[in-house]
């Protein structure tokens, strides 16, 4: 059996701030296989973006301390010299961001920008690179690609700009695509198109995808596995169906409970998670979620406040894990108000 294409082990990202240390990501580990999509979900400040930027060495080295191991295609990316990283960015792994307009150069045609990405990694003529760019534009679903390649970003809608970003990211045929909130700025109908496009290209190219999102609905639609982050840590991780269908961490359960739905009874009160996430400047012992959790009283002693729970196996041959001291969290949740979504 071969190793998974992406192996992240004990990844930690810290930023020194005014004599103190922001712990953005703490001890994060996961795998992504080729042809699969991993969703990383969490709220603002949970570390989902900080961890993905660290994969490709995109944090400022002077302002961040990154430890742990990131192996992509068998190569260690943490500590890799900048020159080699530049070679692998785009070639081995590429990234797209939330705001496609801000990521495109307004004074250059989209065809030029895609061709430029290609020429960075291939010794070829401008004409051949241009042809490649036009081909990519067609593949991401832009009608009349030869003509549209000569257009500027402002002549494209937001959804079209995101298609251009995807074309640029995939022009060098990377085996890993990291998409950081790729549809958050887009309308739902356009979101459906872009997610369909990413899933289709994943299947066509056989690449691995890491999709960072705060939208659990998006996770349900296009992802195989999901990793839920809270305060810099992975708190629940496993197959989407298992994690969102029968959550075993109070935070995951709380997220699902706070969502209004398109089906089931409407109106009434939602069940929010009380409070707010902890201050990332404070190093707290114990479970990062304990202050907002309803269940510390059900755990013997004061363990939720003092001891960080391990990522314990909950189901599915060790695939579904969560970080909670409750012995059988799913049974505890089942005893609560029935989840409104079922």
């Amino acid at each position, binding site marked *: 059996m071969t190793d998974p294409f992406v192996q992240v082990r004990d990844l930690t990202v810290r930023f020194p701030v005014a004599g103190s240390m922001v712990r953005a990501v703490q001890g994060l580990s996961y795998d992504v296989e080729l042809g699969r999509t991993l969703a990383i979900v969490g709220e603002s400040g949970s570390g989902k973006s900080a961890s993905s930027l660290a994969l490709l060495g995109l944090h400022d080295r002077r302002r961040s301390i990154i430890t742990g191991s990131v192996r992509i295609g068998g190569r260690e990316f943490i500590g890799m010299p900048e020159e080699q990283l530049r070679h692998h960015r785009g070639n081995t792994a590429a990234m797209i961001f939330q705001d496609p307009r801000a990521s495109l150069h307004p004074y250059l045609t989209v065809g030029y920008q895609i061709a430029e990405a290609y020429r960075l990694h291939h010794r070829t003529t401008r004409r051949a690179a241009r042809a490649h760019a036009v081909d990519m534009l067609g593949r991401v679903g832009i009608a009349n690609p030869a003509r549209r390649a000569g257009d500027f970003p402002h002549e494209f809608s937001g959804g079209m700009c995101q298609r251009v970003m995807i074309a640029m990211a995939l022009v060098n045929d990377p085996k890993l695509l990291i998409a950081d909130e790729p549809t958050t700025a887009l309308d739902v109908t356009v*979101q459906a198109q872009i997610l369909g496009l990413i899933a289709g290209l994943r299947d066509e190219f056989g690449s691995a995808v890491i999709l960072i999102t705060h939208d659990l609905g998006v996770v349900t639609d296009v992802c195989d596995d999901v990793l839920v982050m809270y305060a810099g840590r992975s708190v629940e991780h496993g197959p989407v169906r298992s994690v969102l269908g029968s959550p075993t961490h109070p935070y995951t359960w709380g997220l699902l409970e706070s969502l209004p739905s*398109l089906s089931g009874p409407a109106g009434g009160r939602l069940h929010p998670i009380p409070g707010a996430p902890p201050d990332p400047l404070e190093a707290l012992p114990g479970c990062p979620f304990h202050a907002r959790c309803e269940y510390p009283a059900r755990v013997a002693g004061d363990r939720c406040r003092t001891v960080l729970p391990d990522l314990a196996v909950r189901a599915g041959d060790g695939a579904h894990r969560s970080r909670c001291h409750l012995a059988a969290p799913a049974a505890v949740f089942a005893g609560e108000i029935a989840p409104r979504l079922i």
Partner: protein
Amino acid sequence: MPDVPLLEVRDLVKQFSARPGGRRTVTAVDGVAFDLRPGETLGLVGESGSGKSTIGKLVTRLLRPDRGEIRLAGRDISTLSGRAMRPFRRDVQLVFQDPYSSLNPRHTVGDILGTALRVHDTVPRSQVAHRIGELLGQVGLDPAHAGRYPHEFSGGQRQRIGIARALAVGPRLIVADEPVSALDVSIQAQVMNLLEDLRAELGLAFLFISHDLAVVRHFCDRVAVLYMGRIVEIGTREQIYADPRHPYTQTLMAAVPDIARLRGGSPRRIRVPSASPVAAESGAQRSGCRFRARCPVAAPVCAESEPALTLRAGGHRAACHIR
């Protein structure tokens, strides 16, 4: 008289020039009409460019309509000047999407709420401080924090401050433009519950503008679906969500990724529908149904005339020739 509408909007039109100083115009709102009764919540949904935020700005008279009527408790406010509008601003207040840019960073929370109270002479001056504390308590904030600045609060808390400011003058209608879109899921639910409580306690009516169909379903009694400046379907929550008639409403619903599907059965396959619209530009596609280029059931008749909003069931109207 509970059946007298608090807000009556008739044939509302707002055009903008496509470029500054240019002659071409974009019709952002194109003949919109609806009623809102006291204590009722109406959701406005649609994609970006559908005109939903413009309607909010017209109703609060941050913008002046080019045509049409906006009757607030029977009085047409659509053409009132700034000064004449002032007494009506107490009745209609706006809550914005972005809690970061809608609060003055150099004013304390007490200043922000105090200004609203003083401008409208809502309470005697001696009572202002007391009332500020009351308002903060009402939105779930610590009254002792009135001396703090906006940056000292989290996003969810800032949105509570924005809500307190709207409540300060004792409005009857709140126009909420994407009030929870900028918030994280767990915080979003807290703010939704606050709005729900305020509605129940104070009998407030809401014009609730959102792109999030699940949030609108949760909060609104009635829903209007906008497409390129027009209402294409309007009805009660049950009518719109359980029995959508317009193909555009159906397209929107189908595009929402809903986790309930995961628990209910197999995740849906994503369909890739046709391209999204750009705002209607005058001259372009002025005849026929404006949805027809994207419509799965379009027929020749759809190019000939624009369908009117016709009655389908009690209060349920849709503008479609086919369905």
